[in-house]
């Protein structure tokens, strides 16, 4: 088989570990399961289309043309916020490169001293003091870093996310530092849109029934029934969710912290991130600086050394991949791996053991490789 040089340069998103899917050459970043996101999109667009088709003509004529105009603006804003939340990087922390991981391991070893064999090493915790409050930083075995305060590892996306709030299947992405304000604005404006459509549906039915009678109104605008149903159920959940997140923002807490009870119960009033002022907390979360993404998705992969002649796979792409990628987690063929590379990745994996031993020799044997070291803390307490 003749060796074919593939000269296409890879972009970094193609080799990022984690279970995200990327679109538009790395510009769009989402979780793997997108089914419920499509449902969200369908419900919003569908309900609004019915509203514009059935109610708006009547209301524009009989009440005011401003009604559909405002509805359109609200609808566009909701879609913009939804897409912004779904497609942006929530604040993913890249995994540690081997040198950094080794450095941290050595620091841990030095801190722990020697552990007698058979005994479990102590859990990997670092204590930091933030505003006179001791906060424990946990070690992430997957990403090989000590997570910054408020960061958490999302098991669905397999990434550590900064200021992790929750993973939302309705938007098909994690909600974290970078997209929390878009998520909040999405829930807020969707609540407003739902209330708006619901209210004007009622108004429309009432106004038309006065002229024509209730049953004939429903026959003329069958969409109304569907809209009222969807809006009724959506309303309660969206208003509730918006209220909950407003409460969290005023206290400068994340959903994750609220669920774990980090700053409630006996720890109430000790949140070190809160400014103790509702207005300041809201301003920080909603009008704070827009953080840049630290995942360089669209950067080109560096080729450190020239590719040598390869007797194994069909092309020198294997070597390129091996040289640029052996530093990160094992190659995970994701949805965007071209099909002709997948068999060579499999070949690479089977030949990988010759690369692993030198690296493994440097890393001391890890304790239980739990992605969330919390359980080990709980057990040890």
């Amino acid at each position: 088989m003749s060796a074919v040089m593939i000269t296409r340069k890879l972009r970094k998103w193609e080799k990022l570990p984690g279970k995200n899917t990327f679109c538009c050459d790395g510009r769009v970043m989402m979780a793997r399961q997108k089914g419920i996101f499509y449902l969200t999109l369908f419900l919003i667009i569908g309900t609004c289309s019915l509203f514009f088709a059935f109610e708006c003509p009547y209301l524009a004529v009989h009440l005011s043309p401003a009604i559909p105009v405002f509805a359109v603006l609200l609808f566009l804003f909701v879609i913009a916020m939804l897409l912004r939340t779904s497609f942006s990087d929530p604040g993913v922390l890249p995994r540690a490169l081997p040198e950094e991981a080794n450095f941290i391991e050595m620091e841990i070893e030095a801190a722990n001293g020697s552990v007698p064999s058979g005994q479990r090493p102590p859990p990997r915790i670092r204590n930091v003091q933030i505003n006179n409050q001791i906060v424990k930083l946990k070690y992430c075995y997957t990403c090989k870093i000590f997570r910054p305060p408020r960061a958490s590892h999302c098991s669905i996306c397999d990434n550590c996310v900064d200021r992790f709030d929750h993973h939302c299947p309705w938007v098909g992405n994690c909600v974290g530092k970078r997209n929390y304000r878009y998520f909040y604005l999405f829930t807020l404006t969707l609540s407003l849109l739902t209330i708006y459509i619901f209210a004007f549906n009622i108004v429309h039915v009432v106004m038309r029934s006065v002229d024509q009678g209730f049953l004939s109104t429903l026959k003329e605008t069958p969409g109304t029934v569907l809209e009222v149903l969807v809006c009724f159920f959506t309303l309660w959940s969206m208003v509730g969710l918006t209220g909950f997140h407003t409460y969290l923002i005023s206290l400068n807490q994340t959903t994750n912290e609220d669920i774990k009870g980090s700053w409630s119960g006996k720890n109430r009033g000790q949140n070190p991130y809160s400014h103790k002022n509702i207005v300041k907390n809201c301003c920080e979360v909603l009008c704070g600086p827009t953080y840049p993404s630290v995942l360089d998705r669209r950067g080109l992969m560096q080729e450190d050394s020239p590719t040598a002649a390869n007797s194994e796979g069909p092309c020198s792409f294997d070597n390129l991949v091996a040289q640029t990628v052996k530093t990160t987690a094992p190659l995970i063929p994701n949805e965007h791996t071209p099909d002709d590379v997948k068999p060579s990745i499999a070949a690479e994996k089977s030949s990988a053991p010759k690369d692993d031993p030198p690296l493994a020799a440097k890393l001391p044997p890890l304790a239980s490789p739990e992605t969330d070291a919390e359980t080990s803390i709980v057990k040890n307490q």
Partner: protein
Amino acid sequence: MATEFHNLQELRHSASLANKVFIQRDYSEGTTCRFQTKFPSELESRIELTLFEETVKTLNNFYAEAEKIGGQSYLEGCLACATAYLIFLCMETRYEKVLKKIAKYIQEQNEKIYAPRGLLITDPIERGMRVIEISIYEDRGSSGSSSGSSSVSGSTAR
């Protein structure tokens, strides 16, 4: 600019990477980006304490400026919200502007101070804003290195 970069390339080619030091984040003031100014022992023989501290403090000031919550950030936030964040398609955020300044500063520091001492600072944004990575190079041509850490990372015993 091309000739300056050429010097750093020369550093990479003529010297061999001996060790890397990682300056960790300082969380004592919260989650804002700040790095510890503690002087690592590996750099004691390579660079003066004052120069190192100056570099880290200036970087901390840059990050504080980028993350400052005040009138300008509110204005930017409200304006962006009013345009459904479409304004960011044509406008650069304040943070991005400061990041460019930081990149320029780091390159300048590397050229003037660190490269002549066989050191190289990596921009924290390339490491997820978690650490400032300082690479220590050993000159291949020199006879007998002074720092003694000639093998990669595994040999520093405590």
